[in-house]
Every structure is written in C-alpha cells, then in structure tokens.
C-alpha cells in the first residue's frame, strides 16, 4: 500500500544487506543483456590516463568480452545469492560480499580492457582479491597456506606477464590490445616478440593452472564454496584462457604458439583428469576436473580453424553452466551432511532431493549426454579437431581429449550418482538434511539453463558465434550451427561413456592403484619443487644475513672499501692505457692550504698511532676539520661550513655513544690485532686508486658548461647570488624535497631500532640501582 517498510531488527537488517548485495550483479546482468540486445558489437571507447606513455583507459566489448561478461554477471548473481544462504549469520558475511564485489569489478575490468597496462592492473587486482577470498577463513592455517600458494604462483606469473606485456608494447609501439592483435599477423617474428610471447604464456598458464603450475588450484579449495564456484569455475581461472584467446588472432600462425598451447593444454587436460582419481574430497575432485577443462580450452585455442574458435566459446559457456552448480552441490552436501569426503557419503537422494536434481542436471552436461549443452559442445569440439593443424599435434590432442572425456564422465558420475544413489548408509550422520531455497535455486537455475541450451542450442548460437568471431577476425561472420550431427557424435559418445562408466564402477580400485603410482612421482612434481623452494628461501636469507650482517664495523668497512676499490679499478683500467695526467703544481703557494693539509696528515697519523677508539675518533675529527679548512681556502665556503658543522655533531654524538657503551660495561672496542697487513694493503690500494682517479680527471679538459649555465641564470631567473643555494632550493627544488623526505623517513626507520637498543640498557640500569 505504498508503505515503506524500514528494516527494524538486526535480522531484517542483515536480510536487507544481503538483498542489496545480490541485487548488484543481477542489475548488472540485466543491464548487460539489454545493452547486448540493443546494440551492435564491438562497442569501444577511451579516455586519457598516462598520455606521456600512450597508456589509455581504453575499453572494448566484442563477442568474447560479451560472453565473459555474461558469465561473470550471470554466475556472479548465482554466487551472490548462494553466499547469502551459505554464510547466513556469519559475522564476516559483509567482508565476503565486499571482496566478491571488488573481485567482480576487477574481472569486468579485465575482460573489457583494451590496453595492456589497464588489463594488467585489473589482472593483478583479481590475484590480490582472490588471495583474500581463498584465505577468507584466515584462522585456519591450511587456508592461509593455500591463499599464499595461490598468490605466489599467480603473482609470479603476473610478473612474467608484466614483463611480456612491456616487451610486446615496446616491440609494437603501442599498448592497445586490438591494434597489436590486428598488426601482429603482418609483423615479422623477432627475438623480442618471441620473448614477449613466452613470458605472456607463463603468465596465462599460471593464472589458468596449466601444467606445471596446476597444483595451486585444488589447494585453493579451502576457500568457502561460493568463492570456489565463482573463482575456480567461471571467472578468475578463465582469465588466462581469455587472454590467450584474445591474442590468438595475432599469434595463431606461429608454430611456437600452437605447439605450446596444444602441448601444454593436452597434457593438462589428461593429467589433471587423472589426478582427480587420487582425491576423496568431492570439491577437490571437481577442482582437478576444472584444471583439465582449462587445459582443453587452452588446447582448443592452439588448434587452427574457425571451428576451434567456436568450440572455445561453447566450452567456456558450458563449463560455467555445469561446474558452478556442481560446486554448489558440493557445498550443499558439506552443509547438509557435514562432510565432502565421498567415502562417508551415500544415498543422499532421500535427504536432499533438490540438490540431487541439480547434481543430475549438471552431471548430464558434464558427461556430455544428449539433451544437454555438454553434448552440443562435444559435437563442436569433434569438428574442431577434424578441422586441422599439424598432424602430430592433433593426434596428441585427440588422445588427451579421449582421456579427458572418459574421466569427466566418471567424475560426473561420482558427483551426481555415487553420493546420491549408491552406497546407502555410509553417512557419518543420519541427520543429513536438505538446504534452504537460497542454496537450491542458484544451482538449479544454472544447471537448468545448461539443459535448456542443450535442448534449444540455437538460443546460444549468436553469442557463441560472436565469441568465436572475436578470435577469428578474418571470417567476418561465422556460420555456426550448434545443432549436433547425431550419428558420429553418438558413436564416439558411446565409447566415452563405456570407458567412463567403467572408471566410475571401479573408481575405488583405480583410486588405490593410481594413488600408489602417482605418489612415487610426487618427489618430482612441481608442487614438491614449490614447497622445497619456499622452505629454502628463509634458510638462504638467514645464511646470507649471518654472513653479511655480522655486526662488526671493521668487517663492514672492509667490504665497503674493498668493493669500492674493485669497482673503481674495473672502471679506471681502460683509462690507464691513455695515461695519467701530470702531477699538478699548486696554483699559488698558500699557507692556509698547506696548514689544512698538515692538519689532515696529522689527524691521519694520529689515527694510526693510537689504539683507543675515543682518541681515534678525535684524530678522525682533525681530518674532518682539515678538510673543512681546505674547502674554505679553495673557495667553497658553503661546503666548509657544512663540513665544520657535520664534523662537530658527528664527533660529539659518536663520543656519546662510545661513552654510553663504556658506562653500560660493554667492551669499548673488540680486540683487533695491532698489526693488520690486510687492512694496510686495502687502505694503500684504495688511496692509490683515488689518487689515480683524480689524476685521470685532471688529464681531461674540464667541461664547465653546466656550472656556467647555473652561474649565469642564478641571479636573473632565481634572484639569488649564492649559486649553490639557488640550485638547491630553486632549480632542483623537487630533488631537495625528495632528499629531505628521505632523511626524515630514514629517521622513522632508525628510531625503533635505537629504542630497541635502549630498552635492555634501561632494565640493567634499574637492576643495578638499589
């Protein structure tokens, strides 16, 4: 009746919040559909970002982006609704929603960006948010470890990707993705482009969990179920596939490209599926099948031909429509029966009929049975592989796909049939119960959509054709018919079903056998390598720190002077060939200069003769004062003043520290032998090198251009007669600003260290006093 009902209780408030968050992706989905129906693709636009570097906020929505956008917002809507039920009453539900929202926005940014730099920024944002999402249950150490692993693997890949993108942008002279892709086929392969290609491949392979970086994805299953369904079925892990598909028109004709993609993709597809056999956790089984599907997608991108491009689009869509519901089903089982371990689940169809229905619908599509969208995809993929490419590659791809298809049937059987129809009575708890509607509607809707598209494939035709068209720009309009040719597909399907059914039937026996075989290989796996290097890093860091940061000042000074000497020697060696300058005669005999030099020499000799550090400090101070005097008599009064002040403050402060050490009863000086030939040699060599450096400089004509430039402009342009000061505060003011900020920041860093030194001293002082 027009009455606005304001939420009053805490529960109403939570409900309102959930509704608000769920409405966001739904609205985006509705807006996107309206946009796609009303306009012609591609849409694009740009705004200036860093014009000096040619970097733009450029965006472009073509068929591939549209497909990804529909998946992100569509599956996103389901995930947001599901999360509302899955984490109802969780104290940190809002944090999950905010993270999911940021992640969704980053994904949207990734798929519409038309600039390499912009794409990379969003790419990294998805890595960061997925780190926080995988580690959502941060109180659980395993969860933290998985999040760290996902971040390290995808982050390292991200660095490779950044390097590759920069090289690519340099080589092509632009960072616009569409322009690069359009110009690449006409560009000659250069070593720089090859390097860029390899680096980008590494970045995409880590993101999409391709062999040998595949191990992080199943471990990321410690994330809450809505996160897994979103990140690891429809969105983040597809980013690598997306970028490969984006660049495919540009690099597609390179043998390296198709070789790497088909090789790695096929290997991942087969091996990932086999690894699913090792698992007992339903969610991890699904994760491995996701890895395998990503491998198949990568392999399809590597194959040549228009039909392969269509297959990529169709498989992307189909996988999102069956894998997300299956993840939801796994979450529901966890929620309703208290475990996801398949040995302790069985006969759940009585307790959870609606979840069983969703699992069955999604399982149909995953197994590729007729009347599901998975069947349509199988048909399109068969066409893609008959289309062409190098013979050996296609054969390898076909073999891998056979393994993939058969185990996929078995995995679908485990997720949809085993836990719901077979092994009754093995459940841990008899109290297995069905979940609420918010946990049932999302999987049923997505899985139902998969079946609807299987029955009426023409509904998806234009979308898949647009996505395929974006990957094959030559064909202006792809003729896509998703209506499957029944006979050959049914024949190959029959074989796949037979093998898959056998695997499903003997799953437990195969599990044991394969697990034993694979554990023998574990020692050589990429995961072991990752764990070893992760453990070795801190050990190496500790060793390096112990070797370099020993806390002995003479040691530091030796390293510092020694490396300076070595670097100077290396730099000066070519100069000695041309000869040193003549020993300079003093311009005029000045008693002041002579006195200053005498002071320096006296201080240096004093340093050598005494063994007491306090006296040594005073003698070193004499050297400093001598230098200041020298500056004063050679016409640099600013420098002289500074030197005087620095020397004074330095000597007083260091003397205070030395006296403080003495008062605390610590050794004023570590026992050093009086005769140290190594140090003597180092000192003499260093002095010799510096002297010869000066003589070399004297031999060159001195270029006073810069000095004259500043001297001439100081008064008219900056109204100051003191050139040194004018340079500091006017000509190079921003440098000075940076320097004083650095000085201040170094103090910020040093204060806690100094205070840490001071605390134990205060403690001992208190103990000594009665």
């Amino acid at each position, binding site marked *: 009746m027009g009455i606005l009902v304001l939420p009053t209780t805490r529960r109403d408030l939570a409900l309102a919040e959930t509704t608000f968050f769920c409405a966001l992706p739904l609205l985006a989905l509705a807006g996107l559909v309206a946009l796609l129906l009303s306009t012609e693709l591609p849409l694009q636009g740009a705004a200036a970002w860093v014009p000096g570097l040619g970097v733009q906020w450029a965006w472009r929505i073509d068929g591939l982006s549209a497909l990804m956008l529909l998946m992100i917002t569509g599956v996103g809507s389901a995930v947001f609704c599901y999360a509302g039920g899955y984490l109802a009453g969780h104290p940190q539900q809002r944090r999950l929603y905010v993270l999911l929202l940021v992640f969704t926005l980053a994904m949207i940014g990734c798929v519409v960006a038309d600039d390499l730099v912009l794409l990379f920024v969003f790419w990294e944002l998805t890595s960061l948010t997925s780190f926080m999402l995988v580690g959502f249950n941060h109180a659980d150490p395993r969860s933290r470890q998985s999040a760290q692993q996902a971040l390290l693997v995808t982050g390292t890949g991200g660095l490779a990707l950044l390097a590759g993108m920069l090289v690519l942008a340099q080589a092509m002279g632009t960072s616009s993705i569409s322009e690069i892709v359009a110009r690449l086929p006409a560009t000659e392969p250069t070593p720089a482009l090859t390097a860029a290609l390899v680096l980008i491949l590494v970045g995409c392979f880590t993101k999409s969990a391709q062999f040998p970086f595949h191990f992080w994805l199943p471990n990321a299953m410690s994330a809450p179920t809505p996160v897994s369904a979103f990140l690891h079925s429809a969105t983040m892990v597809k980013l690598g596939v997306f970028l490969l598909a984006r660049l495919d028109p540009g690099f597609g004709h390179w043998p390296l490209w198709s070789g790497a993609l088909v090789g790695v993709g096929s290997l991942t597809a087969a091996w990932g599926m086999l690894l699913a056999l090792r698992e007992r956790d339903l969610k991890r089984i699904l994760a491995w099948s996701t890895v395998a599907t990503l491998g198949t997608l990568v392999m399809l991108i590597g194959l040549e031909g228009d039909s392969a491009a269509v297959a990529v689009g169709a498989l992307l869509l189909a996988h999102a429509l069956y894998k997300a519901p299956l993840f939801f089903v796994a979450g529901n089982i966890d929620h309703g029966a208290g475990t996801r371990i398949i040995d302790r689940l069985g006969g759940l169809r009585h307790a959870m009929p609606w979840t069983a229905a969703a699992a069955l619908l999604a399982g149909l599509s995953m197994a590729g049975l007729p009347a599901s969208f998975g069947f349509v995809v199988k048909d399109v993929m068969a066409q893609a592989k008959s289309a062409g490419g190098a013979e050996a590659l296609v054969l390898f791809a076909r073999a891998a796909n056979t393994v993939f298809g058969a185990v996929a049937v078995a995995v679908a059987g485990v997720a949809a049939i085993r836990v719901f129809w077979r092994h009754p009575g093995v459940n841990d708890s008899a109290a297995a119960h069905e979940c609420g509607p918010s946990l049932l509607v999302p999987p049923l809707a997505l899985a139902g959509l998969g079946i609807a598209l299987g029955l009426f494939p023409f509904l998806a035709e234009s979308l898949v054709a647009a996505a395929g068209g974006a990957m094959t720009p030559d064909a202006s309009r792809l003729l896509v018919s998703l209506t499957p040719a029944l006979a050959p597909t049914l024949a190959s399907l029959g074989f796949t079903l037979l093998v898959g059914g056998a695997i499903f039937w003997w799953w437990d026996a195969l599990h044991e056998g394969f697990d034993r075989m694979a554990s023998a290989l574990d020692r050589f796996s990429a995961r072991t390598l990752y764990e070893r290097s992760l453990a070795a890093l801190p050990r190496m860091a500790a060793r390096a720190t112990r070797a370099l940061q020993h806390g002995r000042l003479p040691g530091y000074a030796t390293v510092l002077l020694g490396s300076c000497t070595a670097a100077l020697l290396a730099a000066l060696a070519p100069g000695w060939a041309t000869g040193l300058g003549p020993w300079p005669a003093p311009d005029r005999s000045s008693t002041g200069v002579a006195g200053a030099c005498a002071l320096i020499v006296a201080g240096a000799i004093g340093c050598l003769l005494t063994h007491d550090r306090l006296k040594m400090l005073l003698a070193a101070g004499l050297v400093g004062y001598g230098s200041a005097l020298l500056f004063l008599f050679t016409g640099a009064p600013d420098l002289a003043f500074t030197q005087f002040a620095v020397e004074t403050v330095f000597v007083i402060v260091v003397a*205070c520290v030395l006296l*403080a050490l003495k008062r605390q009863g610590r050794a004023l000086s570590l026992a050093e032998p009086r005769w140290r030939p190594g140090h003597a040699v180092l000192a003499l060599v260093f002095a010799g090198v510096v002297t010869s450096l000066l003589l070399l400089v004297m031999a060159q004509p001195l270029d006073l251009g810069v000095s004259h430039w500043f001297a001439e402009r100081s008064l008219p342009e900056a109204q100051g007669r003191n050139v040194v000061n004018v340079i500091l505060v006017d000509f190079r003011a921003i440098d000075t600003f940076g320097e004083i900020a650095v000085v201040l920041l170094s103090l910020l860093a040093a204060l806690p260290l100094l205070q840490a030194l001071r605390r134990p001293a205060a403690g001992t002082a208190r103990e000594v006093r009665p």
Partner: protein
Amino acid sequence: MNPQALMLQVAARPLYVLILLASLWVLLRGHNEPGGGFIAALLATSGSVLWAAAHGPQAAARRLPWRSPLALGVAGALIAGLSGLPAWAFGLPYLTHLWGSLELGFTQIKLSTVLVFDLGVYLCVWGALAGYALALIGLDDAGPEDRSAHDTAATQETLR
C-alpha cells in the same frame, strides 16, 4: 652535581640562543651569501647536541619547536611541500617559486616562496638530524625521571 656539568649548564643557555640566532641568520642570508637551509639546520643541530650534553637528550628534545624531533621534521617537510602549491594557482609547474615584495614605507621586504621552501628544509633537516643525535646520545638514558634520579644520587655523592 659535578661542578663541570654546572658550568656547562650555565653556559648552555646563552650559547643555545646564540647558536639558534646564528643559524637563523645563516638561513636568511643563504640566498645571496654562503648559507642556506641545510647549513643552518646543521648549526641548529649542534645547538641541540650542546643542550643534550648539558641537560640530557630528553630536555633537548623538549626545547625543540613542537617539542619533538619527529614533529619538527614532519612540519618542515610539510612546509617545504606546501611552498610549491601556490605555483599551481598561476598555472605553473609544482615548486616554481614566486617572488613578491612588501612595501613598508621606510623599507621594502622581499618575500618569496623560496624562503618558505628553505625554511621547510631547515626545520626538516634539523628535526631529522636532531632526532638521530638525541636518540644516539640517549642510548643509555632510560628517561627523564631516571636522569633526575641519577643526578640526585650523583649530587648526594659529591656533597658527601
């Protein structure tokens, strides 16, 4: 209290004022004669070190503007950074310095953002270096109350 420290403490007050005045003079003349923010800050730091030698580092910190080396340094950096902003109002790049003069009838005072910038450098470097120096000098000094307790004990010892 030992008599030498007393001498130092008595001498420190006029010397401190004198050093600070000298540092200000060096700062102000810096644009045309030898001097400037950095040198002036070093001079001022030596003043703070003198006060620390006479009265302890905590007391020296309290005598600084804003009563803390860190606050002084931050204020200096802020002043130096802000001095570049007016340039924007005239459509010039950041830190382009502006000059103006103030007519006082009998004389004319030149004003500029350069001086503000140099003042910022002076305060920031003074704060940072004094922060280092005072922290190092105070390494075995637990706090003001400890120092005074120590002094009283020392005084009683000398009296005895």
